[in-house]
């Protein structure tokens, strides 16, 4: 099958990319299109249970097994309190499972130290939050470059890469604007660029359209669509079917259990 290795940002490869699997960080506008085949698993959950002690034992997830293939686009749908955010936090290495195994790119998260999980968050996953979670006093460019500062990418290089990513999401003329000077949609695109900065194995989006109007939400989903089209693995959490339908498959989750997996 035809595959390309595309690294359009600098001559330096951020991570070794296998010849079979190409990763492209390019949303709309880039001419290179890559199809990904014979995919390997980027994220797998095996019998994952997560319980919290909140005056009694609360089971947020119960025996969940799920795997995400490289380049796949998955939506997790469920009502609030169903455990979908917990699922995201576990994959993102913010939380650890009570039982079972969570693997991201073959790293068993339970076996990682706190520092190693922080490193994983800075290199293997990219979070996109409902409330954007940008640092208001930093410019768009510095917000995008921030994850790279924790993984030791030199300053000039990460600022250059941040500028290029912002251009890709259509904010090339907003590099030095601070989040309060940007619209909700623009802020979310800055957040997406930030999530892409470390070339993560998987993008984790938690209700990314929850804080913007319907029209803006659609445009953000278009960005995700383009990212998926260029080979990024995406896990999207939402409670709206309309949003979930942008994905290739929808994992229905209720009361901490996977109810159904629906191919779209």
């Amino acid at each position, binding site marked *: 099958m035809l595959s390309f290795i595309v690294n359009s940002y600098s001559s330096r490869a951020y991570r070794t990319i296998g010849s079979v699997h190409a990763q492209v960080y390019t949303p709309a506008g880039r001419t290179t299109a890559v199809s990904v085949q014979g995919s390997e698993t980027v994220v797998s959950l095996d019998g994952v249970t997560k319980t919290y002690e909140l005056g009694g034992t609360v089971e947020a997830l119960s025996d969940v097994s799920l795997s995400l293939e490289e380049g796949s686009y998955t939506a997790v749908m469920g009502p609030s309190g169903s455990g979908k955010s917990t699922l995201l*936090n576990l994959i*993102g290495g*913010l*939380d650890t499972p009570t039982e079972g195994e969570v693997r991201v790119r073959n790293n068993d998260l339970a076996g990682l130290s*706190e*520092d190693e999980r*922080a*490193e994983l*968050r*800075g*290199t293997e996953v990219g*979070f996109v*939050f409902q409330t954007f*979670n*940008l*640092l208001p*006093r*930093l410019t768009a460019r510095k917000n995008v470059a*921030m*994850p790279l*500062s*924790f*993984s*030791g990418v030199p*300053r000039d290089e990460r600022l250059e890469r941040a500028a290029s990513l912002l251009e890709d999401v259509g904010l090339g003329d907003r590099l030095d604007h601070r989040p309060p000077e940007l619209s909700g949609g623009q802020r979310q695109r800055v957040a997406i660029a*930030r999530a892409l900065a*470390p070339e993560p194995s998987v993008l984790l989006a938690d209700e990314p359209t929850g804080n913007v109007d319907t029209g803006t939400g659609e445009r953000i989903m278009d960005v995700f669509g383009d990212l998926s089209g260029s080979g990024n693995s995406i896990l999207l959490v939402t409670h709206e079917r309309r949003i979930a339908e942008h994905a290739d498959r929808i994992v229905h989750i209720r009361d901490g259990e996977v109810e159904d997996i629906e191919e779209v």
Partner: protein
Amino acid sequence: MDLRDAVGMAAGALWSQRLRSALTVLGIGLGTAAVVTFVTFGASLRADVVGQIDTSTANNIYLLSTPSDEEGFPERPQPVFTERDLSELRSIEGVDRVVPQGTVGISSITFSNSTLARQSVTATTPEAFSGISFRQGEPFESGTDEAVINRRAATVFEQNLSVGDEVSITRRSNETVDATVVGIVNRTSSQLPFQTFVQQPRFYLPTEPHYDAVVESPSLGVNQRAYPQVTAVADPSELSGTRERVRSYLNDSDASGLQPPGYSLSARTGGDIADGLEELINRLTRFVTGLAVISLFVGAVGIANIMLVSVTERTREIGIMKSVGARNRDVLLVFLIEAALLGAVGSLIALPIGVAGGWIATSYADIPLTLVPFWFGVAVLVGIAVGVVAGLYPAWRAARVDPIDALRRE
């Protein structure tokens, strides 16, 4: 995260809260400035005093009978050293000469038509002037009505006194001594080292015939003159040995038998007294600096307080940093640097303020300003250290923020 990035991040956070940062900096800055002020003042005082100590008195051994619990400046010494003590002291090895000094109670001194009310004049022997250069004239002779005065005394009357002038001294007994001024000096060899600080007018008369404090010598059983202060001038080559021999003599001197209970005899060299004085100033400086250090603590508490507020306010920011890969130590570093920056900037602005304070204090005390750059360096380091110490707990709290809780916050 490298140090430069962390500093940039910390500086950005402080800059985004400019007023608050400025006030915190002011707090620690004023504390450090107070320390710098007092240290500068102490150093200036010390330099001034040490500079004024008459080093030519280093070989003098001063014998005094003073209350045992009194330190520093001897006040109102008792007349306990008899003529027999003087002659015994003169025979001690290493003692070049022995100069007694006492006071003669008077009521006034008149020169020309102007009269000066005065409590006492000093009675001493011609040896007090041996080795002293005279501005005018020469030492008095024993058994005469000649007087020697110091420079200041020459100018206290309407007309300036000079050699050959006659002053009439009215004693307490109303008897009048008409003394002829034969010499004008800057100082005497028996003068205590710090008596040159304040130039008071001094009049010297020979002990014979003017000094009349008499006691019965316990060892000889006869009445003799007794003096409150005796100076033994030692051979410089064996000063400390001579001092020890003088001390051991004091144990069976007439003076030890005559002194009132609670008094003790001391034999201290000019160097001992100068050291004591220096130590006194150092102790004073340390005490006042200690007080100023309290304000440094206040500044440190200010930093700790504002950093804790900052950690609470920026919990979400910490969560964001952690979600994009910040390790605990990265967060710790950023917050520690913030606190250290507050301390460092505070102590940097403290230097000019503190030096200005020192300048004001020294001008007020009328002593020359002495700057000690070493202490400026210490002040800046202490400022940074105070910031770091004050920031430790807040930074530790920041590092331990749970990203999930933090991100859930609004």
